[in-house]
């Protein structure tokens, strides 16, 4: 059931091939990869062809025992040749490799770059924009960059528990999030769109559903998104059911794990819910973020994401409806 919901959540997306890069680091990596693949194809055809030829050409004729073929013990010249040729190929390959490593890893950060801190957690992503005052989860918003005004996003990667890995194939290769260590990577998408990724380092029971969305949008859209995310939640909603739900939220244990800015809920264990409804999915990508799934999630998160650390809240249906009504106001 959870994956049916996931299917719907991801339906808009296409294939995440590493050979369909839309971002500068991924493009550099794909260019190098294509060169390696071409070299590999040549080596495979030549060496594989020689092996196949020798088996066919030198197969013993059937039936007749025959004498032993001439014994050839070796040849220094031939050995030198097939030592030198692979060595030259490797040297050429490694010169190209060293260049791309430095281009990607040692890229200077332009002054306009967006800075984001991503914290890996079992099994979701905490996303912070320290200079913009924005905190969100599982959905990274970044501006697209063009050659005239470059605006890449530089990520600082940390972990609150075990090792994770940030991988959005069309944007960049992966970099791990390791506890007690700070890593860095950057993305620079050139086309607006939603790009899907996932945790790529095994991190426990729900490693599989630690999914990731990156929304690349025009600089204007991005600024509007930042403005909207900086708002604190409105005071008690007008709708009486939602207002009652707010009391449930603040009066039960919800607030010890979750934050809703502008209220007393300041928990840091689970995702920040201040702008919950601005996100497309819940549970780090397991289901579309709509009333039905929200209700199911709060009632028993295990239904959607087996093994998730959020406990089932054991809330009566009446209070559950109020609570969901309140969550739906967090835009």
């Amino acid at each position, binding site marked *: 059931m959870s994956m049916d919901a996931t*299917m719907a959540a991801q339906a808009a997306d296409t294939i*995440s091939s590493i050979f369909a890069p839309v971002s500068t680091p991924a493009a550099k990596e794909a260019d190098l990869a294509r060169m390696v693949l071409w070299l590999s194809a040549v080596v495979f055809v030549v060496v594989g062809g020689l092996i196949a030829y020798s088996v066919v050409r030198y197969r013993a004729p059937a039936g007749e025992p025959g004498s032993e073929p001439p014994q050839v013990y070796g040849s220094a010249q*031939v050995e030198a040749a097939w030592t030198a040729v692979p060595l030259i190929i490797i040297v050429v390959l490694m010169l190209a*490799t*060293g260049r791309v490593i430095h281009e990607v890893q040692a890229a200077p950060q332009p002054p306009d770059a967006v800075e984001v801190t991503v914290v890996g957690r079992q099994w979701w992503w905490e996303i912070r924009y320290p200079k913009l005052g924005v905190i969100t989860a599982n959905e990274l918003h970044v501006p697209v960059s063009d050659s005239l005004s470059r605006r890449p996003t530089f990520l600082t990667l940390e972990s609150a528990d075990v090792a994770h890995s940030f991988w959005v194939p069309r944007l960049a290769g992966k*970099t791990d999030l390791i506890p007690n260590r700070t890593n860095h990577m950057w993305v620079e998408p050139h086309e607006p769109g939603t790009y899907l990724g996932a945790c790529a380092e095994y991190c426990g029971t729900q490693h599989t559903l630690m999914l990731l969305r990156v929304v690349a949008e025009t600089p204007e859209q991005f600024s509007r998104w930042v403005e909207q995310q900086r708002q604190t939640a409105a005071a008690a909603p007008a709708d009486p059911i939602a207002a009652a739900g707010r009391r449930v939220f603040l009066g039960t244990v919800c607030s010890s794990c979750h934050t809703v800015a502008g209220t007393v809920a300041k928990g840091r264990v689970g995702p920040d819910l201040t702008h919950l409804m601005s996100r497309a999915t819940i549970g780090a990508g397991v289901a579309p973020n709509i009333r039905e799934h929200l209700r199911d999630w709060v009632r028993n998160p295990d239904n959607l994401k087996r093994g998730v650390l959020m406990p089932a809240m054991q809330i009566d249906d009446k209070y559950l409806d109020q609570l969901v009504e309140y969550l739906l106001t967090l835009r």
Partner: protein
Amino acid sequence: MTTTGFPIAAAAGKGVPSVFDRLYEWVVTVDHKRLGIMYILFALVFLLIGGIEATVIRLQLAAANNHLVSPHTFNTLFTMHGTTMVFLVGMPILAGFANYLVPLQIGARDVAFPRVNAFGFWITCFGGLLLNSSFLTAPVLFGGSGAPDVGWFGYAPLTENAFSPGNATDYWVVGLILVGFGSIAGAVNIATTILTGRARGMTLGRMPLFTWITLVVQCMILVAVSPLTASLILLFLDRGLGAHFFDPQAGGSALLWQHFFWIFGHPEVYVLMLPGFGFLSEIIPVFSRKVIFGYPVMVAATVAIGFISISVWAHHMFSVGMSPAANTFFSISTGLVAVPTGIKLFNWLATMWGGRIQLRTPMLFAIAVLLQFLVAGITGVMLSVAPFDWQLTDSYFVVAHFHFVLVGSLLFAIFGAVYYWYPKAVGRMLSERLGKWHFWLFLIGFNLTFIPQHFAGMLGMPRRVYTFLPGRGLEIWNLISSIGVAFQLAGGACFVWNLIRAYRRGPLAGNDPWDAWTLEWAISSPPPAYNFAEPPVVSSRRPLWDLKHPHDPDWHYE
């Protein structure tokens, strides 16, 4: 015999030993041939267990959104599959071949330390049983939590108490410590045997290539397995006594475990693969009817691989955020492995060139290894290119790559070796017809299963996921991959049936069924206790060639 007072010995005196007597003889044996066979049988049993785990994994992944097993169960399956195949199949089966063949190939009557040999086997055996008994703990024992689910390389801090409570991980740690002791004991024993037990005239430069490679591998085991055992003990201290070596929340280092593990893990790949090269270096010359091309270069390439393999471990860690300089270094060192490995491949090719190739079952497997290892080597070079690796690592591409190494190359080489030496160990020939069924079914199944996984990885499928998203181009590759398993199982069944059938009624092999050239073929099949009635004297790399061609012996040319 009867004077010892043991009822066993008394029974043996009656003429027909009972099943119990025969079992007792095997349990207390210190004979290298029996221990070798026990290692191999032990490994084949675990090959079956690991194969069943793999089959369930592929059933679960046959379609998107499949619910055959729970996420937790799936995680235990891939953890136990990986751990079993590396530590309870690969290591023991190769220890078994080394045990059985090395004394025969060097003309020795037994290994240097027969009792250490028995100790190594039994501690490996009990380590394996202990590890797998964890499956039983969930329903049976108080506080039991089933099989471990931390992945076969057990990255910290997932293995710490905070994230893996219960004792599942302790079974993994203690099981591997025991198996590690077994490997180290075996390595000391085999290396000493090779260095001290060779027949008169067998200089280092005249040893069969399998023995040479085995010597290098034993040295690598001492360098690689010892740090793993030490790290596992540190982890055990973390879990049992509250030490903090790998616990970042108390100032330990999670990254340190990765370095410790891969300083074992990468040499380990060659510890597993090099004996496969050893099998090829025996099989290809005999079935091409030609002497191995470039023997000294083959030895040098083996030693070079041994040394380089110690300097490449961090290519498993290109994504952990090392400096550009470190990433460049490990890219280069890893790429360099391709050079001696390529030399080996070209020397086998040159051995076949101009020969009279007989496509018997061992040779079929050897030729498949050449082609599949070519693929594994090429994808290995791709992974050595750090920026390409940032995309490929921890994806299904890596899964495909190392299965091309460990199944497509090593397991195929092991199958070839079994067909080649079974007549020596049992005295009867395996069926060529069943062998060809086994070969073709397994070849088709293997390639169906693992070629598509390269594409799944390049399409963004991470490894170790219990399911995958529909609509992202992954369904077809995973379906083909799962279908391949059926062919592999059918091939495996032919293999097992062939082993059993030939044991009962295979044609008698005689001393030297393949017209081969190394010393093990000079004595009866199966060899008598203590192998050589008279210590052989050797004057070239192919002592039996010299016997068969007295007018044109090898020592004229070496």
